[in-house]
C-alpha cells in the first residue's frame, strides 16, 4: 500500500481501541518473568555453552601476540576464537569498527577473542587467562584538541540562507556562545546478549536487537553468508535507546564461538565492557550565534557543531533542529567531524536533536535575557509555520506555540522570577526553566502479515521490535480496530526475521510506521475476508466481531471457517515528507532546587506538553515521554563518559561510575498530549514521541539552574562543582 496523499477518514478514526490507555498486552509476561529475553532462551536452546569476551585493553595499537595456552587448559574450555582463527570476516554496513579486532586495535575493549566453556564461570575465568601483548600507538582521544583537524563530513553538513554574517554583524542584540556536551552511554538495563546455534551453514541467533532486517544483513555480511542463512529472533528487549540498532560483538562472538565449539553458545557483554565495547552518543562542541532586533525577532541564527568518531564514522548531527525550529531570514549551520580513536560513536535516543537542543535551548534562554523578554514569549515570537530554509515548504502540522502556552499555564510559569537567584525555600535556591522540544518525524516502510483463524482470533506477524516502548500493545490495538475485534482476540508476534520486514525501532519512527504497516496488512485481510463472505469489500464494515455490507451481517470468524485467511502488505511512502516538513513539538518546563551551600541540584517537578499527532495509546506514550524526561535529567545533571585522554578510554565504565537518575531524582513528572492528528504522517495520523520526550529537557534544567542561582553553565553535565563559585557565601 502506498501512502502518498493525506489520510482521509478510515477505520482507525473510530478510536474504539486505538487511542485508549490499554495496559501493555505483554505486561503480565514481563512481571511474572515468563517473557524470556535473549540470554534466557534455554527453552529454545537447551544445552548451550557460554562464551566470554576477551576485550582489548589499549586505546589504539596492534596486537603482537595472543597467548591462549593457559586458557585452553582451564577447566571446561571448549574453544577459543581470535581474529586469526575466525576465518575471513566482513564488516556490517552499519558498523564502523570491526566487531572482532586484531591485529589492529581500533578502540578500548574492542573484542579480540571469545572463550567458550561449559559454564559461564569457567568461560569468564579462562578468558582472564588469555594473555595479549600489544604495541601501543598514539591516538587522538581529545575532541577539543582534534577540533582544528575536523573536516566537512558530507555535502549536507552545511546549510546557508540569506546573509548570515551581514545580518549577525548588524543585529542590535546578539549572542555568541560555545557549549559542550559529553560522550554519553545508552546504559540500558539489559546488556547486549545473544545465543547462536548453527545447523549446517545456517545460523539462528536469539538476540537483543532493535532493527532485525538491518542486523540480519549485517550478520550475513560479517560471516560471509547468504542473507537467507541467517535468522534473528528478538521478541523481548530490555531497552535499547539506539545501542541495539546494530549487530554488536555479542552476536558475532556467539556465532563464531558456536561454530568453533560445534555447540550453541550464549554470549553477553559484561556491564563493565559495554561502555567501551559498544556505541555511544558522541561528545560535541557547539558554537551558536544569534542576532535579533530590539523587537525580539531573530534576524540571524548560526549553529556550528564539532564531533569526533573513528575513521569512517559519522558526525553527531547536532545542528538538525536549528535548521527548522525558529524563524529568521539569515541562517547558517555547519558540522565538522574529527577522527578520534575512542570507541565508535553512533545513535542514541534522538541523535542530533538531543545534544543539539542541549546547546540551542540554553542559547535561546541567554538571548531572551539579553532582549529582556520572557523566554516563553521569545520562543513564541520566533515561531515559524514553514521550513525556514525552504519557506515554500510548510510543516505538516505545527502546534508548537500551543505547547508553550499550555505548558506555561499549567506549570505556573507566571510565578517565575525573571531575576535569577531571588527565590528561596529554606536552604534551597529555587528556579524554573523552559525549553522547546523538537524532533523530526520519520516515516519508514513497514510490512506485516495478519492471519485470521477459524476461532476468530487474529495473529499479527512482523519483524518489528518492542524495546520496552509498547509496540506489542499498539500493534494489537491497530489490528483490533481494523478488524472490529476486542484486543483480547489479537495475538502479536514480533522480532523474528522470518516475519515481514518492518520499520524496526529507531528514530522514534517505530510506533507510527509499524502500525501503518499493520494497517496495510489489515486492509488486505479485510478485502480477503469480505470476498470469502461474499460481501462488497469497498463498503464492508468490521465491527464487534461481525462484517456487514449491503444489509447483511456475518461473523468475522466465518471467513476462516474453511482455513485461515491471510493479509500481508507493506506500507510505503510517497513524497509527502518532501512536500511537508514533518516534525514533533513540545515544551519542557522544569523547577529545580539548588542547595545554597553545597550546590546540590535536585529537580522538583517537570512538565512536558507534546504535540505529536494522534496518540495511539496514552499509557505507553506517557511511559515513553517520562522515560525520556528522566534520561534528560541524566544528561543535564550527571551523565558523562569521562575520557582518559592519556590512555584513550572511557574511565567510568560501570553503573557505579556512570550515573543515571534513580527514583529519588525524579519526584514529579506530568505529561500532556495536545489533541491532534496529522493526516500527512500515515493513515494512523500518528507521529513519534519516544525521542521527543528527551529533546530540550537538559536545557530546561540548565536554564532552571541559572534561574535559581544566576550561574550559567555551558558545559554539560551541570554538576555542583560548576556552581560553587557563584553561590551565596555561607
Amino acid at each position, binding site marked *: 500500500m502506498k501512502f502518498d496523499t493525506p489520510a482521509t477518514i478510515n477505520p482507525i478514526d473510530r478510536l474504539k481501541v486505538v487511542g485508549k490507555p490499554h495496559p501493555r498486552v505483554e505486561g503480565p509476561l514481563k512481571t511474572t518473568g515468563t517473557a524470556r529475553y535473549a540470554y534466557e532462551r534455554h527453552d529454545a536452546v537447551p544445552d548451550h555453552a557460554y562464551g566470554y569476551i576477551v576485550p582489548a*585493553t589499549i586505546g589504539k595499537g596492534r596486537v603482537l601476540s595472543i597467548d591462549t595456552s593457559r586458557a585452553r587448559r582451564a*577447566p571446561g574450555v571448549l574453544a577459543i576464537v581470535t581474529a586469526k582463527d575466525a576465518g575471513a570476516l566482513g564488516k556490517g554496513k552499519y558498523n564502523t569498527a570491526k566487531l572482532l579486532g586484531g591485529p589492529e586495535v581500533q578502540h578500548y575493549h574492542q573484542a579480540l577473542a571469545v572463550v567458550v566453556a561449559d559454564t559461564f*564461570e569457567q568461560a*569468564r*575465568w579462562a578468558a*582472564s587467562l588469555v594473555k595479549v601483548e600489544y604495541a601501543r600507538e598514539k591516538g587522538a582521544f581529545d575532541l577539543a584538541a582534534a577540533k582544528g583537524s575536523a573536516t566537512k563530513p558530507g555535502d549536507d553538513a552545511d546549510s546557508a540562507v540569506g546573509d548570515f554574517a551581514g545580518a549577525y554583524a548588524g543585529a542590535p542584540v546578539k549572542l555568541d556562545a560555545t557549549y559542550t556536551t559529553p560522550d554519553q552511554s545508552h546504559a540500558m538495563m539489559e546488556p547486549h546478549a545473544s545465543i547462536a546455534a548453527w545447523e549446517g551453514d545456517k545460523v539462528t541467533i536469539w538476540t537483543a536487537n532493535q532493527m532485525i532486517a538491518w542486523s540480519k544483513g549485517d550478520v550475513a555480511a560479517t560471516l560471509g553468508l547468504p542473507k537467507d542463512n541467517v535468522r534473528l529472533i528478538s521478541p523481548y528487549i530490555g531497552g535499547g535507546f539506539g545501542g541495539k540498532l546494530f549487530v554488536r560483538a555479542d552476536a558475532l562472538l556467539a556465532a563464531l564461538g558456536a561454530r568453533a565449539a560445534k555447540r550453541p553458545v550464549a554470549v553477553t557483554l*559484561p556491564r*563493565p565492557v559495554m561502555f567501551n565495547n559498544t556505541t555511544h552518543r558522541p561528545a560535541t562542541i557547539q558554537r551558536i550565534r544569534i542576532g535579533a532586533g530590539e523587537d525580539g525577532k531573530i534576524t540571524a541564527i548560526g549553529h556550528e557543531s564539532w564531533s569526533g568518531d573513528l575513521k569512517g564514522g559519522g558526525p553527531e548531527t547536532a545542528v538538525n533542529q536549528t535548521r527548522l525550529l525558529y524563524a529568521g531570514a539569515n541562517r547558517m549551520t555547519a558540522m565538522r567531524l574529527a577522527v578520534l580513536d575512542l570507541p565508535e560513536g553512533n545513535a542514541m535516543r534522538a541523535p542530533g536533536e538531543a545534544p543539539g537542543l542541549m546547546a540551542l535551548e540554553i542559547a535561546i534562554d541567554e538571548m531572551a535575557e539579553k532582549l529582556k523578554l520572557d523566554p516563553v514569549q521569545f520562543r513564541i515570537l520566533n515561531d515559524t509555520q514553514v521550513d525556514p530554509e525552504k519557506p515554500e515548504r510548510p510543516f505538516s502540522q505545527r502546534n508548537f506555540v500551543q505547547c508553550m502556552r499550555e505548558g506555561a499555564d499549567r506549570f505556573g510559569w507566571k510565578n517565575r522570577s525573571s531575576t535569577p537567584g531571588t527565590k528561596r525555600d529554606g*536552604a534551597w535556591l529555587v528556579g524554573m526553566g523552559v525549553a522547546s522540544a523538537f524532533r523530526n518525524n520519520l516515516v519508514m516502510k513497514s510490512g506485516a502479515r495478519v492471519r485470521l483463524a477459524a476461532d476468530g482470533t487474529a495473529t499479527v506477524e512482523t519483524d518489528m521490535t518492542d524495546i520496552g516502548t509498547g509496540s506489542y500493545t499498539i500493534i494489537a490495538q491497530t489490528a483490533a480496530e481494523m478488524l472490529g475485534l476486542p484486543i483480547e482476540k489479537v495475538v502479536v508476534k514480533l522480532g523474528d526475521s522470518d516475519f515481514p520486514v518492518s520499520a524496526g525501532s529507531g528514530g522514534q519512527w517505530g510506533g507510527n510506521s509499524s502500525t501503518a504497516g499493520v494497517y496495510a496488512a489489515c486492509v488486505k485481510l479485510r478485502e480477503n475476508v469480505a470476498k470469502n463472505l461474499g460481501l462488497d469489500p469497498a463498503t464492508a464494515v468490521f465491527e464487534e466481531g461481525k462484517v456487514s455490507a449491503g444489509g447483511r451481517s456475518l461473523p468475522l470468524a466465518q471467513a476462516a471457517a474453511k482455513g485461515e485467511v491471510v493479509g500481508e502488505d507493506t506500507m510505503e511512502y510517497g513524497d509527502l515528507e518532501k512536500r511537508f516538513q514533518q516534525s514533533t513539538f513540545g515544551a519542557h518546563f522544569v523547577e529545580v532546587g539548588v*542547595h*545554597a*551551600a*553545597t*550546590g*546540590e541540584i*535536585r529537580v522538583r517537578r517537570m512538565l512536558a506538553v507534546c504535540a505529536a499527532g494522534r496518540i495511539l495509546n496514552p499509557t505507553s506514550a506517557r511511559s515513553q515521554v517520562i522515560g525520556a524526561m528522566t534520561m534528560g535529567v541524566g544528561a543535564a*545533571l*550527571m551523565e558523562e563518559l*569521562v575520557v*582518559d585522554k*592519556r*590512555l584513550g578510554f572511557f*574511565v*567510568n*565504565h*560501570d553503573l*557505579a*561510575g556512570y*550515573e543515571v*537518575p*534513580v*527514583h*529519588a*531524582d525524579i519526584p514529579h513528572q506530568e505529561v500532556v498530549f495536545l489533541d491532534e492528528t496529522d493526516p500527512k504522517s500515515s493513515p494512523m495520523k500518528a507521529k513519534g514521541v519516544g525521542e521527543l520526550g528527551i529533546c530540550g529537557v537538559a536545557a530546561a534544567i540548565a536554564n532552571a539552574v541559572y534561574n535559581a542561582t544566576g550561574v550559567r553553565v555551558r558545559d554539560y*553535565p551541570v*554538576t*555542583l*562543582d560548576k556552581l*560553587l563559585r557563584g*553561590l551565596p557565601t*555561607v
Partner: protein
Amino acid sequence: MKPFTYERATSPAQAAAAAARTRNTKFIAGGTNLLDLMKIGVEEPDHLVDVNGLDLDTISKTDDGGLRIGALVRNTDLAADRIVRSDYAVLSRALLAGASGQLRNKATTAGNLLQRTRCPYFYDTHQACNKRLPGSGCAALGGFSRSHAIVGVSKACIAAHPSDMAVAMRLLDAKVETVQPDGKARSIPIADFYVLPGNTPNVENTLQPGELITAVTLPRPLGGTHVYHKVRDRASYAFALVSVAAVVQKDGSGRVALGGVAPEPWRVEAAEAELPQGAKAVTARLLAGAQTTQHNAMKVPLVERTLASVLAQAKG
C-alpha cells in the same frame, strides 16, 4: 572468577584459625563488595570462610552505657535500631545515606568498615593501581580523579574510602572488637584501625592475617544534635563527593568527621576546638596540607560550605 574453596565457619575463633591456615583467605558475610570484586578479578581469594552463620548479629547495651553491635548486624537493621535512632542518630543517618535498600539488607557492620575504594582504575584490572597490584603505579594520578581523596594521600595512591557508616563510627569513637587466629580477643579504637596508604596502599587496616571482626562497640551517647550531610551528584545510590558527620552540643562544641576526602574516615580532633570559630577555621585544620587535582580541588570549598550548612542546621 578465579576458582576458590569455601567453608562455613562454626565459631569466630574457628573462623580466624581457618583463615590463618589457608593462604589468601577472605571472610565473606554480605558479599556486596567482595563478590563484585571477585567477578571482575580485583579480588582473587583462594579460600572463602563464610561467617554468616555465626552468632554475631545482635545489638546490645554494654555495661558502661554504650552499645555493642555484632559484626553481622545488617546495615538496614542497624539503621532502624531504636537505640541507634535515638542515641546515635548520626550513625543511622549515615547508614541510610549509603547504598540502596537491597544492599543495606545484605551488607554487614564489619563488611561496611572493610569496603574497598571506588577508584575506577582500581576496578579496571588492566590499569595501573598500587592498591590492587603493588608497584604497578597509579593511573588515577594524572587521570580522572573527581571522586578521589585530598588528604592523607600519597604519591602511590589517592583513592578515597567509600563508606558512610565508617565516618559516623569514627565520629562516635567506636572500637573494633576482633578475635585473632590464636583465639585471643582484642579491641582496636577506630582511630587506630585504618592505615594511610603511604608506599603500601594495599594495606588498608591494622587487622592481622586471619583476624576476624566480631563487633563494633560505641561509648555512651554524646547527646547533642546529630547531622549527616552527604553531598553527591544524584539524590541517592551514589558515593559521596564529600560527606560531613557532626554532633554539635548546645554550647557550640562538638565533633566533626568527613567522608569522601581521605583514604579513611577523616577526623582531626584538634580541628574540633575551632568549632566556635565556624566552618572556615575548622576546615582549615581538617584539610591542612590538602593535595588536590584539577578534578577534585572543588572538595576543599565544598567541605567548608557543607560544614557551614551542617553547623547552621545543628543550631536549628
